[in-house]
């Protein structure tokens, strides 16, 4: 029993999970039951996948010991590339593939420059944040192209599914991808290498792990997920805006950190990142329902980020200090 409690206390996503439950109860009570109503849940769950997918990639990369600040810009660049190609007559699927390829290349470049020149990824991806955003504006030609929805099977990505249409297909995509990445991290040798690389690089290198390739793979996964998430948002909204996804990189880092991912690498979980992203969405929605001035939203997220880090460190320490016999 004590051992179970100990393992539980050491779970990095614990603090965030507890807080999530607490907030859901609070908002449900504050809003007189509107929060968990079908109509409201439909809205929350419909928006969630877009940020949560970005958070999944950012969390994976942070566990590997690196940062990606360019995800917000890649989030915009991917659908913009796709839309521009489609206005030039490309069918949807090749245009989408090309858009994702652009993301993969950006991830590759982020990783390669970071490793080749031994620069902090914080700086490399900060540069990429500006470059990818600029590219987005340039290729849009100033006018956001309208997507010709008739040529897109958008139902596959954003159609309503489930009882009463409570979920969007994007939620299922997100769920599938999050589970896949989570399994990749926890159940495969690649996941072991990611944790070793982020946990203590010299040891990973001494054990013969191809740390450069592991990092680059994580950079690429992170970029591709960001681009895919951007595409989902554009399919939902109907037209790519050059400014979409601004500030998303920081929200994604906040989600990862709130979910217990350590900034130093090696520690964290995909589930934590997902819980963090959910918390941010829930707070956003809950504050609106509670008729709180929406300008308090960023304050709440900021406070929560700090709180979660402090809380997680404390819980982990308690868990470690706990004695178990045998």
């Amino acid at each position, binding site marked *: 029993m004590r051992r179970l409690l100990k393992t539980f206390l050491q779970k990095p996503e614990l603090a965030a999970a507890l807080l999530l439950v607490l907030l859901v109860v609070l908002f449900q009570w504050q809003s007189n039951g509107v929060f968990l109503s079908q109509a409201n849940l439909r809205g929350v769950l419909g928006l969630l996948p877009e940020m949560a997918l970005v958070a999944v990639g950012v969390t994976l990369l942070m566990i590997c010991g690196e940062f990606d600040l360019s995800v917000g810009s890649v989030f915009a660049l991917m659908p913009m590339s796709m839309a521009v190609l489609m206005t030039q007559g490309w069918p949807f699927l090749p245009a989408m593939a090309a858009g994702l390829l652009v993301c993969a290349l950006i991830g590759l470049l982020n990783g390669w420059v970071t490793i080749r020149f031994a620069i902090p990824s914080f700086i490399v991806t900060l540069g990429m944040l500006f470059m990818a955003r600029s590219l987005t504006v340039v290729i849009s030609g100033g006018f956001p192209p309208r997507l010709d929805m008739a040529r897109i099977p958008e139902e596959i990505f954003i159609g309503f599914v489930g009882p009463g249409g409570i979920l969007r297909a994007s939620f299922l995509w997100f769920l599938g991808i999050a589970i896949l990445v989570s399994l990749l991290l926890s*159940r*495969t*040798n*690649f*996941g*072991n*290498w990611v*944790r*070793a690389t982020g*946990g*203590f690089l*010299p*040891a*990973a*290198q*001494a*054990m*013969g*792990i191809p740390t450069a390739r592991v990092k680059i793979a994580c950079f690429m996964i992170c970029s591709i997920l960001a681009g895919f998430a951007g595409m989902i948002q554009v399919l939902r909204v109907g037209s790519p805006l050059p400014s979409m996804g601004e500030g998303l990189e920081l929200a994604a880092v906040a989600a990862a950190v709130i979910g217990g991912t350590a900034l130093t690498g*090696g*520690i964290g979980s995909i589930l934590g990142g997902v819980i963090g992203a959910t918390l941010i969405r829930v707070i956003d929605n809950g504050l609106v329902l509670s008729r709180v001035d929406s300008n308090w939203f960023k304050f709440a997220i900021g406070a929560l980020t700090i709180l979660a880090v402090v809380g997680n460190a404390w819980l982990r320490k308690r868990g*470690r200090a706990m004695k*178990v016999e*045998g």
Partner: protein
Amino acid sequence: MTTEFRTATDPVISVRNLHKWYSGVHALRGVSLDFARNEAVGLVGDNGAGKSTLISILSGLNQPDEGELFVDGRPVRMRGPRDAMDLGIETIYQYNSMVPSMSIARNLFIGREPLKASLFGIGVLDEARMRAESVAAIADVDLHLRSPDALVGELSGGQRQGVAIARAMHFKSKVLILDEPTNHLSVKETNKVIGFVRSLAAQGVTGIFISHNMHHVFACCDRVVAMAHGRVVLDKPIGETSIEEVHEVL
């Protein structure tokens, strides 16, 4: 060819005229050494003498700028630690080669994970086997640990060293290199490591033991090699030298 006349006394590892520069620092200045089969060699020298640099070349972590390396009489070029491991050379590094945020079982198999199924080298971990084998490996080196799921970061320095030794032995190495394994260890744990180095020959393993403590070296090695400023300055069987003589050349 030398390989055709190989005998039990032929060296398992030979290096000839090794040089290594670190941007201006000439860390190895022409090192030539032979390590015989089942021999325990003590490698001593002042801070910065080049001991770690030499073993980083033997373990594939670094490439020499000049010189040759032979394993079992064959010239080899190692491109990474995996090449050395595949040749049967295991290393316990001076700065612990464990990831503190990972469990014992995970650490034991970093880079050599047993897989249930795989595609292009990426596959599903056989976690049951990892746990079972790590329990056995730890018991084999007489270490008593609660659970293979405990985080390495929660172990004491001596226990960590024990896990590192268990890992090296589990992968049945031909050569085991220990870089200052007795650092920060209690007398009891130090004696355990010394006893372990002494037992290597019986297990058919060649040992290379680096230490600043001559008493430790003389307690468990067959031969002592002293380095200073990137060169070998003394190389004698233990029986033909003394702690005083070694101290004198350093």
